[in-house]
């Protein structure tokens, strides 16, 4: 019996290990990071983080995890192999969200309380520039070619375009109320910006800085006020977008070519941010008010599991390997 069971276990281990990713969730109110295994779809570790952890991302090689510790005014760097805190980077006051360049050496951080974007050299822990933007800056996106940085300011209602090399502003696009999140399509031809209070997602041509399309959402049985788009994820083929709708407790599945909404998937309460596994098999959602994470099977467009994490989960990131 015993050898047989061991053999079984070994077979199992041999069959899956390369596809397992780690998913990192920031729990804003319990000051922790939940580490999830994408194979077992369960929390495998809970790490203490700084105060009010919000934005989260991994380095391109997956070896480092960056976390905005908003109330500690710093970006924490964890070693993903040990999940030990390595160091804390300068960030400017109240870092909320951030983007990392492809080389992995520059962080572009939104400072929610001081209306600026801070650019930090990760290796030297040095502030390279501070760019004034609108009130309550939040969403941060870097174009795939690394040339254009975009920040959304929640109270000014704009997407601010910044030259990512000179750090000079190059344009501002007015969008609907309380823009929360910005993301470029993989080919850089589109910028998607969610407006939480405006209830819409603007698809912007980054070159002309014109709004190509405003996507609106209509969930039967819900008032328009309950539909508050926040996190967005786009598939690599440019065909599908997922939009978290906040207190509508749903993720909208949008055809990214026709901009039609195809489906609404019921997840936990006040869904904030989303993360796709690199193989695009699963989409994970951080549900802020129900304190859990939902897992969506991307091929079947079905919610297959929800499980508890810490208090007020907000940010979510997946390791690249």
């Amino acid at each position, binding site marked *: 019996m015993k050898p047989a069971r061991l053999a079984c276990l070994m077979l199992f281990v041999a069959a899956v290990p390369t596809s397992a990713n780690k998913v990192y969730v920031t729990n804003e109110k319990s000051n922790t990071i939940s580490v999830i295994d994408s194979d077992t779809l369960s929390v495998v570790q809970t790490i203490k983080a700084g105060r009010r952890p919000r934005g989260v991302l991994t380095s391109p090689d997956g070896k480092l995890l960056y976390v905005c510790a908003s109330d500690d005014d710093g970006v924490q760097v964890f070693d993903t192999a040990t999940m030990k805190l390595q160091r804390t980077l300068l960030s400017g006051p109240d870092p909320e969200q951030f983007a990392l360049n492809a080389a992995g050496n520059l962080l572009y951080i939104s400072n929610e309380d001081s209306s600026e974007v801070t650019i930090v050299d990760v290796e030297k822990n040095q502030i390279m520039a501070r760019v004034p933007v609108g009130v309550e800056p939040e969403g941060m996106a870097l174009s795939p070619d690394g040339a254009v940085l975009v920040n959304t300011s929640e109270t000014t209602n704009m997407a601010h375009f910044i030259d990512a090399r000179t750090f000079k502003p190059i344009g*501002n696009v007015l969008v609907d109320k309380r823009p929360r999140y910005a993301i470029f399509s993989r080919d850089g031809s589109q910028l998607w910006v969610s407006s939480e209070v405006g209830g819409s997602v603007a698809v912007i041509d980054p070159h002309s800085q014109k709004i190509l399309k405003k996507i609106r959402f209509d969930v039967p049985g819900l008032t328009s006020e309950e539909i508050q788009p926040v996190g967005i994820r786009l598939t690599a083929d440019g065909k599908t977008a997922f939009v978290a709708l906040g207190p509508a407790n749903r993720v909208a599945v949008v055809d990214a070519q026709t901009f039609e909404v195809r489906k609404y998937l019921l997840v936990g309460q006040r869904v904030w941010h989303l993360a796709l596994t690199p193989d695009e098999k699963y989409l994970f959602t951080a549900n802020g008010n129900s304190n859990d994470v939902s897992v969506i099977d991307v091929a079947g467009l079905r919610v297959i599991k929800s499980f508890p994490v810490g208090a007020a989960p907000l940010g979510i990131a997946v390791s690249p390997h």
Partner: protein
Amino acid sequence: MMKARPDFFALRRLFRIAVAVGMLIAAAKAGAAPANEAPANEALNIDIAFVAHARPPSPPFVLDPPPPGEGFAGANLAIQENATTGGFIGQNFALTDIELAEEDNPAEAVKPWLDKGVRLFVVALPADEALALADAVRSVGGLVFNAQAPDDRLRGADCRPNLFHTAPSRAMLADGLMQYLAVRRWSKILLVPGAGAGDALFAEAVRASAKKFGVKIVAEKPWTFGPLARARSDAVTESDALTFSRGIDADMIVVADEAEDFGDYILYRTSEPRLVAGTQGLTPTSWHPTHTAWGAEQLQNRFIRASNRRMRPIDYQAWAATRAIGEAATATRAADPQKIAAFLQSPSFNLAIFKGAPASFRPWDRQLRQAILLAQPKSLIGMAPQPGFLHQRSTLDSLGVDESESACKSKQVTR
């Protein structure tokens, strides 16, 4: 006699001129003009005046007196937010503080500013004065934003086409509270109106609201034991408080005491243990220091940094009015008050007000639709609309006077 001498007023009064020049304007102008916007060569000036009486000193027994600059501080924070957005698109926002002495007449006091072309007034004034000001500036196309008076008549029979309200009406406040009582199934209340004129109006709003949400007023006992109960706190007052509600089978006492005379005093001094709500105890309000959800923490912190105190409801209401003007000016690229008024009442307007659902103006009475917080001094109890109260248009319209009930006859802005 002073009415004939506006220049005298101008000399006497201290006008603080706060021109909020966003630090960001220079930075924004360094960038290229956005491709999808009109060229920002010609800067547009949007001038707003804030009008209120200087807060008189409060007697020493008032623990939390209205601070100097109440209301103005909120408008001033909003003007900085407007100016930041404006800086990116070539719009300059300026705010003037017209602080009135006790006896000053606002309609007279604004004349020098009307001459300078100011047409947008955010006011923290009593109902009659807000109304008189709206009438005085109407012929020149001026708009008045009421950030203080909760009087329902300003939204009803006495409404004006150029008078907007960011202060919730008493009907909205009472509805917020009654929804909560209905959800809790605390359906029997003892209503205790005070002697003030506002108390009678608040009590009236509670009666209407109780009927609307199926809460029963099992008894009504006016507070007749004289003013300043809390300040006096003598043996007679204490025995009055003990006995006046004896034997009434109510879940809760709802007090109408806008002067803060007795509402706090009743709590813990009745013969049977009774919760207190209304103007004291559990209060419905537009804003509260304990409210931090929906991004409110950012607004609370910004306000504290700018003013070294907590944001109060009138600050918030003045903030919302000034932000609404800013949003309308930005969206319409106009400073023309008629364009702003039309846009504010159109379905295109909405405003993020840090209470979840976006705010908008009801076109039938120009009242800002907004959620109502339910709070006791150190804790937030809830927010209305409470779940389950539905409305065919917006759940926010479950609070206050609906279109079909409105006594307001001017539904469109006309000059």
